[in-house]
Structure formats: structure tokens, C-alpha cells
């Protein structure tokens, strides 16, 4: 099977199907979900039945409904974070690459120091002072993640700034904005797209992890990480309640990784001594 003109492997096809399924379900949740978001329809940790396919959560809400709303919330927040981080990262990275000088030095040193603190710790510090509202979460994680996007886009920009067409554009008198958006950005698209996939995965896991610690998305909003946290006590009774949302998280990230891996392998050269033969 061909997608975008390249052969699709079995694992990448599986990944693509799962990702599309998740996206479709998250988009149409209000019409697809069997019950309302916070409707209590059973007893605590009811067994799976025909009425509730995955059973009930810790206060009797349908697990499937909660999972659908949870993935809608978590995917939505992760997408917002990744989009914002790419906006900040690409802008600062390309400006640094094209303008150079003290702007470049300032941003590079700032990013170096920011990368010297592990992201989780830095996020915990900011959340500890500002609290865990959704705007603060999105802004904090986006700024932290933009450091890696900055590095990538700066490296790409440095390679592309020395090309003749960029020099020609500058000699024509084009401004900085034109050079960045019309000359450099279209040629840097491929690595940035696969990086978007990888960063989305990382941000998705990050926000789920923060919610699991109780410091991310707060109740009553449904959120996959938070659901694992709320249902965790069921483990001690041998019940599978927290496994369902955790499996959803794992399934989505594995699928995105499979697709991104396939995208990266399209450009990769064969490795090892076979390359020389």
C-alpha cells in the first residue's frame, strides 16, 4: 500500500489506523459517548458488562465514556502544547540562525541553561509557584519544549541560510519575515514534521504523567493520566480499572511513534557494511 508515494510497512499501517481512530473519537466524543461526562451509572469499580464495556470507575461513572472524554482532553492539551512550542521554537530558532550576532548568542545560552534542568523538575517548580490551571500548564510545558524545537530549527536554519537562493532573496531586499517564511521554512519542512510527531508523543506522556502525579489537569475534567491516579487503588484488589486508561495512553504513543519511525526511515540510508557493497 502506498501513502504519500512511499511503501507503508505493517507496523506503520497499524500505527496510522490507531492514530486516526483516536483522533476521530476525540473529535466526535460528545456524539459518540454512551453517557454524559460525569454521569454516575453504576457502583464503584463494577465489572465490565453489556451496559458498561470497560466497567465503572471509582465513583461509578462509565469507564468508556470517561476514557473518550479523557483522551479528548489530553490529546487536545498535548496538541495545543506542541503547536505553541513549535511556534515559539521555530520563530526563535530561525531568527537566531538568520540574524546571528548577539541575538543568536543570547538565545543559545538561555536554551543551554534551560536544558540543564530536567523538564519535569522545571515544570514542577513552575507549577508549584503558579498552580495547575490549564493555561499555566500549556504555557509552561510549551516554553520548556520549545528549547528542543529551537535547537533543531536553528541547526536547520544555519544550513539553509548559506544557500544561494537565500542570499539572492536578501540581495533583492527582502525583509527578515519573508526570508524566514518563504525561503527557509518550506525547505525545512520534512524534519520538522517528524519532530512534531515525536514532540507530540513526549508532551502527551508528559501531561499524562503530571496529571498522574496530581499536578496536571485537575478534576472534574476527565484526563487519562488523572484517571489512572483516581483508579489506582483498584490494583490492590486485583481489579483492572487503572489499566484501561493507561493502555489507551500507551496505545496512542506507540502508534504515533510507529508512524514517525516509518517517516524517518524513508530518508534513512542503509546502515552497516551492506551500504558499501
Amino acid at each position: 500500500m502506498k501513502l504519500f508515494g512511499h511503501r507503508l510497512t505493517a507496523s506503520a499501517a497499524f500505527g496510522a489506523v490507531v492514530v486516526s481512530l483516536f483522533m476521530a473519537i476525540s473529535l466526535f466524543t460528545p456524539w459518540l459517548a454512551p453517557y454524559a461526562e460525569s454521569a454516575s451509572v453504576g457502583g464503584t469499580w463494577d465489572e465490565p458488562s453489556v451496559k458498561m464495556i470497560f466497567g465503572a470507575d471509582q465513583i461509578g461513572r462509565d469507564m468508556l465514556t470517561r476514557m473518550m472524554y479523557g483522551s479528548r482532553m489530553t490529546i487536545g492539551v498535548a496538541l495545543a502544547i506542541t503547536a505553541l512550542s513549535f511556534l515559539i521554537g521555530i520563530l526563535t530558532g530561525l531568527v537566531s540562525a538568520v540574524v546571528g550576532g548577539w541575538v543568536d548568542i543570547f538565545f543559545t545560552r538561555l536554551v543551554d541553561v534551560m536544558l540543564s534542568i530536567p523538564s519535569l523538575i522545571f515544570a514542577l517548580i513552575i507549577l508549584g509557584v503558579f498552580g495547575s490551571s490549564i493555561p499555566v500548564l500549556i504555557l509552561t510545558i510549551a516554553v520548556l519544549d520549545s528549547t528542543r524545537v529551537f535547537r533543531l530549527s536553528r541547526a536547520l536554519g544555519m544550513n539553509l541560510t548559506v544557500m544561494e537562493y537565500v542570499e539572492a532573496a536578501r540581495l533583492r531586499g527582502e525583509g527578515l519575515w519573508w526570508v524566514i517564511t518563504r525561503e527557509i521554512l518550506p525547505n525545512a519542512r520534512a524534519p520538522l514534521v517528524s519532530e512534531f510527531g515525536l514532540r507530540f508523543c513526549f508532551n502527551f506522556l508528559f501531561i499524562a504523567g503530571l496529571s498522574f502525579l496530581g499536578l496536571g489537569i485537575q478534576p472534574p475534567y476527565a484526563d487519562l493520566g488523572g484517571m489512572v491516579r483516581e483508579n489506582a487503588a483498584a490494583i490492590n484488589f486485583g481489579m483492572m480499572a487503572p489499566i484501561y486508561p493507561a493502555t489507551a495512553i500507551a496505545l496512542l504513543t506507540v502508534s504515533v511513534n510507529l508512524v514517525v519511525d516509518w517517516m524517518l526511515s524513508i530518508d534513512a540510508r542503509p546502515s552497516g557494511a551492506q551500504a558499501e557493497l
Partner: protein
Amino acid sequence: MAKLIVNRLFLGLLTLFAVSVLIFVCTQILPGDVASAVLGQGATPEALVIFRRELGLDLPPQTRYWNWLSGALQGDLGVALTNKRVIMDDLLPRLRNTLFLAGYAALVAIPLSVGLGVLAAINEGKLTDRLSNVLTLIAISLPEFFVAYLLIIFFAVNFQWFPPLAMVSKGMTFGERIFQTTLPAITLTLLVAAHMLRMTRSSVLSVMSTPYIEMAFLKGARRKRVIVRHALPNAAAPIITVVALNMAYLVVGVVVIESVFVYPGLGQYMVDAVAKRDVPVIQACGLTFATVFVALNTLADILVILVNPRLRQQD
């Protein structure tokens, strides 16, 4: 060469200094009025006054930063806001616990992943290699708590081989400690081993297209010998870097694992402090984590210099 190493150490110290400034700015300068930001809805006028006096917020920022940093360098990290305990007394044993867990995981993960990575490189293209590729890709995509809960369900609840909570206390014997921390250590191992395995494999394979490797094959050496004797020493530098980075990641991944297993380590301490908005503890924990992180990165840089003779000359 010694000059290069001293250079790296100095750079590490400089980074640490910059990091401490960043932490201080984020916790005390950025929020504007720290008192109302932290107290939130509980910000009655009396509470604000008391809070400001506790943290010494009436002093200028440079004085506050200098007080904090000089205290920290002497081992005095201040007093916790919520329960008035000396922070250092709580932090040090928890740091020991976290380092114990991380060290346990590292001792298991590093030989396992480097060995398996080399094996995968030797068997490149065959079924075992492709299988390990897919398995490790899945492993690095899984969230930490998912792996942890799976292990708990199978090994603690079903088979009852290990306890579901990791309870370590002061007077425990070494053997008891190992028994309690085995499940969390396995979880951490699974997380970092997959990453290190992939990097070892790709690092060895990228060395394979060099002329001296081709010469070794032409001499008639078998693939296994070529990899172990010729490719591996030259692939060592990126492997060491990845190992050091994963050790640094280990110290952070510990935070979630400690929450799942209720292990009394530094990660749990920090998470609790964030939940209670205890600013001095957050600062102290952040500084400690950052120090360990920067130290491990500097160690990685120095090891890379030592391993690759070509990097020992300057200019």
C-alpha cells in the same frame, strides 16, 4: 588534556550557578507578588504579612538570592514552610534513597542494554534484530506508570513474589532493601534499557561503514570479531554520552516511579511540596536535582574526552 578536563569542570560549575539563578528567578521573581501567587484564595491580609515575613520578601532580590545561595553552599537549605522542619534533615536521607534506587536500576540496565545492543548490531537485518527493534520502540513509548502497574499486577498481586509498595526504613539490612526496591528498579531498568539498546545498536552500525571496518572484513575476520574488537571501541563515545544522559533521566523518571510505589525518595518529597506550594522545599529539591543532572552531564563530557584520543588535543 588535563586543561580540557578542568575547562569542562569549570563550565559545569558555571552552568550550576546559572541554573540556581534561574530557579530563584522562577520561584521568587517571576510571580511578581510571590505571597498572593502562592496563597491564592487563602490570601487574607494577615496571611500575606506572615508569608512575606517567613520568606523574607521585604529584602531586595539580590540579598535574598545571596542569602539562599550562601546558605545552600554551607548545607543550610532553610526551613520548610508547611511543617517548619529543617529541609536538610528531610532531604538528605531521601536523596540517599533515590540514589540507591537509581544506582540499582543503572547497575542492571547498563550491562544489559549495551550487551543486547551489540548483539542486535551483530545480527543486523535478521528476525531477532527486527523483533528487538519493534519491542524497544514499544518500550520507549510506554508511560512509566503503565509499566509499573503492569509489573505490580503480575508480580505483586498475582504471583506475590514482591511487595506492591516499596517500604524502606533506616534500620533495614542491605538484603531487605534490595528485596523491597526490586520492582521499582525493574520498572526503571525497562524504561532506560530500551533507549540505550537502540542507541548502542545504531552507534555501532554507523561505525560499520568506515574503511578500517571494511579492511577487517576483507582480512577475513568474522562479523562478531570485527564488531567487538574494531567497531565497539570507536563507537564508545556516543554510547557513553547516551548512558550518562539516561542516568540523568533515571534520576528524573524516579519521580513518577516513587509515586506509584510510595517509595520515600526525593521525587515524592518534591511532588508533595509542589502540591502544598511549599516554596523553600521546591527550591531546595529543584537545586538538588539540577546539581545531580549537571554533574552527570559534565561526567559524560569528561568521559568522552578520555575515551576518544582525537578529542584530547585542543584546536
